């Protein structure tokens, strides 16, 4: 590599390494998004058709009742999932932060569902919530003969079973993030508060929790992101049913793209999902990147 060519090459190596990876990102992320956006403005059905047809697919999408079901399910799931995970996560983090000797063991138990696939979680909860053999049977044997629990197959309540399983899987994650945040609060500050005679409760409410605002922000964003993308859990737990009662945008898109061969409509729904994510993530990323 002593030659001039060698040195010139060496000087450009970093760029030579980064360029193909960056190009891959430009093609497979941005290029593909553009393709999908384009297709969403066409009449494409089984095969892509590149002639623009205006907002046709978006009009079809918004006049499809199933899309409205998917959206309202997303809102229900999103709200409940985020709020419950936040509450459980925060509670557990605060409790675990009380100098507990077996904290490591407890934390491991709280967090292991995060290592599971949503498909596994869905499979287990499908069995636990099984009308007849599941919780219902347990209650009957405990003497509550009249107990009925058929949410899994009840179109009005099935979406809440998705919430139950989702919260079980992800609340430990929220706990871990909050705990990391609590641990980063300066010990000196807490000591000073104690010396000033502030009770532990007061210290938490007035000092610790306000300092957790950025962590809270991150957790909300991460959970929201999980909620919007949720697909596996719904497929494994309810299969989107009964009927399409537990459809979400992600399962809607999949079924119109791969089962019904409605490329244009599927693309339009994917674009709607992308817009939602962008609305949440971009301001967050922007503020995060500016901080570092």
């Amino acid at each position: 590599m002593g030659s001039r060519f060698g040195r010139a090459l060496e000087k450009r190596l970093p760029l030579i390494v980064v360029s193909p990876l960056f190009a891959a990102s430009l093609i497979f992320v941005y290029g593909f998004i553009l393709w999908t956006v384009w297709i969403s403005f066409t009449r494409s059905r089984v095969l892509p058709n590149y002639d623009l047809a205006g907002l046709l697919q978006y009009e079809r999408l918004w006049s499809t009742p199933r899309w409205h079901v998917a959206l309202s399910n997303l809102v229900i799931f999103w709200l409940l999932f985020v709020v419950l995970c936040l509450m459980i996560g925060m509670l557990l983090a605060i409790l675990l932060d009380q100098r507990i000797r077996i904290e490591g063991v407890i934390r491991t138990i709280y967090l292991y569902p995060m290592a599971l696939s949503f498909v596994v979680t869905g499979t287990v909860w499908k069995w636990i919530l099984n009308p007849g053999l599941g919780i219902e049977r347990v209650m009957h044997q405990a003497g509550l003969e009249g107990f009925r629990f058929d949410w899994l197959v009840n179109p009005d309540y099935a979406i809440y079973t998705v919430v139950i399983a989702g919260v079980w899987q992800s609340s430990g994650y929220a706990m871990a993030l909050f705990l990391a945040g609590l641990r980063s609060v300066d010990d000196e500050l807490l000591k000073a508060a104690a010396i000033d005679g502030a009770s532990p409760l007061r210290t938490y409410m007035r000092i610790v929790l306000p300092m957790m605002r950025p962590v809270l922000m991150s957790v909300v964003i991460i959970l929201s992101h999980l909620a919007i993308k949720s697909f596996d859990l719904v497929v494994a737990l309810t299969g989107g049913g009964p009927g399409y009662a537990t459809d979400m945008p992600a399962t809607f898109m999949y079924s119109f793209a791969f089962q019904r061969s409605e490329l244009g409509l599927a693309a339009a729904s994917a674009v709607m999902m992308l817009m939602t994510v962008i609305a949440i993530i971009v301001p967050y990323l922007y503020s995060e990147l500016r901080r570092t």
Partner: protein
Amino acid sequence: MKQVSGIVRPKGWARTLQRVLLFAVLGLFCVYYLVPLFVMVSTSLKSLAEIREGTLLAPPRAINTEAWAKAWRSACVGVRCNGLQPYFVNSVLMVVPAVLISTFLGALNGYALTKWRVRGADTIFALMLFGAFIPFQVILLPMARTLGELGLAGTIPGLVFVHTIYGLAFTTLFFRNFFIGVSNGIVQAAQIDGAGFFGIFFRIVLPMSIPAIVVTVIWQFTQIWNDFLFGIAFTVGESNPVTVALNNVVNTSTGVKEYNVDMAAAIIAALPTLAVYVVAGAWFVRGLSAGAVKG
């Protein structure tokens, strides 16, 4: 002494009560998280007759491993009745190369972006980072077509390709954040000694990034093993990864519903990531919080 303990006592009582309450709540949540695991394991060890008679929460009367054998070797996934075994192998063949390649490229990329003056490094990074957040529904259709044109549709190499491409954003992010904390002086000193871009990377930077490598490998392994969307969208039948096969086993509607086989299958599909979590839990948590603090 006596006096002091006398004064402190009421407070001590309150404190004991507080601790008891604290552990009661913590214990209750332990039960909450563990019950599904217990149900899964105990159901998988029961016979179908025992399942129909008893309840979810009853432990198995005798250990019966038939459901496990069936889930592994002969359960029906669609029309094929070879159990989960071939799909488990598919997942292994998918996850190993995908994790290694995406981690290696992420390390190289993060190193080039932080330790060498690549023009526009920050912009490049910000643009690539976005790829970690997009809902993948937005790339499913063009990717399916691209895989078809590359002759990779419905194959394991196709899945490796997809996971590598979309794993890059996270691996780059993680290594970039790690390398930012590494002093530039080491790289500059090595440069003065005549070491080049790859020399410094392989002999100096990689050996010191073992912790970052471990966290990234664990994270990528978990993500890719547990993936369902790419698996179901880009593979068919024989090339399905284990998560898709599990879903097919559970939702195959022919014949008698065998809950014990379903549960054994679920455990088999979950075992690799659970094992990683148990062995390397601390690293796993670091990956989670790194995944959280993107940027």
